């Protein structure tokens, strides 16, 4: 049976961790302020396509939905999800190393997180709280982040070249193309 966390070479990771009572607001302020303090910490993980942190305060209950019993979360929960390249284990190694300063501020506010909030202890904690996907979809799962960025750059390069090459003779065109894109032949 196919691994539900896999689509092409892309993997889905999700961890859902309980937030310590009293830490909900500082955690939200920290996460919401990340943008104003510079690039996202997830940019330090070059295998991350897209990722998110979401604090879920509770489930939604609506009396008109005929749900026999309301259901509430016991605590606020922090969701971290990532759409990443390659295997999850080595990705978490990178995360627990490169994101150590931020991890203390993020998972350090969660119940059961090791005091160090880094390294192997954090990895074990995140894996313990991993939620397996039912279905994971990627529109371009074969392409790594590096490949996507490179292809986007190349597309711009081809467009610019196509405009520049208009009206060139065969020899000039060939020389300009090889100079621009190289030739692997």
């Amino acid at each position: 049976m196919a691994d539900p966390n896999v689509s092409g070479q892309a993997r889905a990771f999700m961890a859902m961790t309980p937030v310590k009572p009293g830490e909900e607001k500082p955690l939200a302020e920290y996460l919401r302020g990340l943008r104003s303090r510079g690039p996202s910490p997830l940019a330090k993980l070059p295998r991350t396509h897209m990722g998110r942190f979401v604090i879920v305060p509770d489930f939604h209950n609506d009396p008109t939905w005929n749900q026999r019993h309301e259901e509430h979360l016991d605590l606020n929960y922090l969701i971290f999800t990532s759409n990443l390249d390659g295997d999850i284990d080595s990705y978490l190694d990178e995360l627990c190393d490169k994101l150590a300063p931020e991890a203390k501020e993020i998972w350090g506010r969660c119940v059961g997180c090791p005091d160090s909030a880094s390294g192997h202890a954090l990895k074990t904690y995140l894996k313990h709280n991993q939620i397996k996907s039912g279905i994971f979809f990627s529109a371009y799962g074969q392409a790594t982040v590096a490949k996507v960025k490179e292809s986007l750059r190349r597309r711009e390069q081809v467009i610019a070249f196509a405009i520049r090459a208009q009206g060139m003779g065969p020899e000039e065109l060939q020389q300009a193309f090889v100079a621009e894109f190289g030739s692997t032949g």
Partner: protein
Amino acid sequence: MSVEATPAAPITATGTHPRNHDGQAIAITVFSTIKLPGRVFLPVLFAVTRRFPKLTATLRQLSFIHFARWCLIGRLPYNGPPQKKGRFRYPHMYFESNFNGGWEEYIDAFSHILTNGMTAFWGTSYGFPKPLPTAPFKKYIQANETEADHYYSAYPEATSTMIQRALELDAKLAPLKRDASRMSPEEFRSAYRAFITDAQNAL
């Protein structure tokens, strides 16, 4: 204490909170509570969809999706007090999507193109009003959606379509790069023109 929803959440032109954005990329995060039949039905649906990925083929038609996932959560891993141990009374379905465009357009497209798929996935959720008409469905999603506190895209200015076209273009460019210096100038010009014609849709 609970995290408060931002009271005057500025809704952008894309119809969602700015924290759900990074450039063109938009996050949607939705929990729904599952009725009893869904405990059995959804794991089967997930397994069948993974085995026969017809639904994901349809998702591919919605060319503005980068990544999406569904998870069924019956219990959460235990981390010690004050967390409570045990199963939820109901399973909960987690859905997230990373897409570009507008929130409203996204839900509209989902409802119109994936009408049957949506009914299959959310049909056992409490409060699910059917995908069409879209207004009640949008209300349902809004009620169950949680805003991201931080959202990141590695290539925020690129849409999913741009990426797929760029990858396609790259694949088409490779043989021309490989053979360019082996050709005569005339042969190269013909090959280049053929490439530009072939790759037009990817540019």
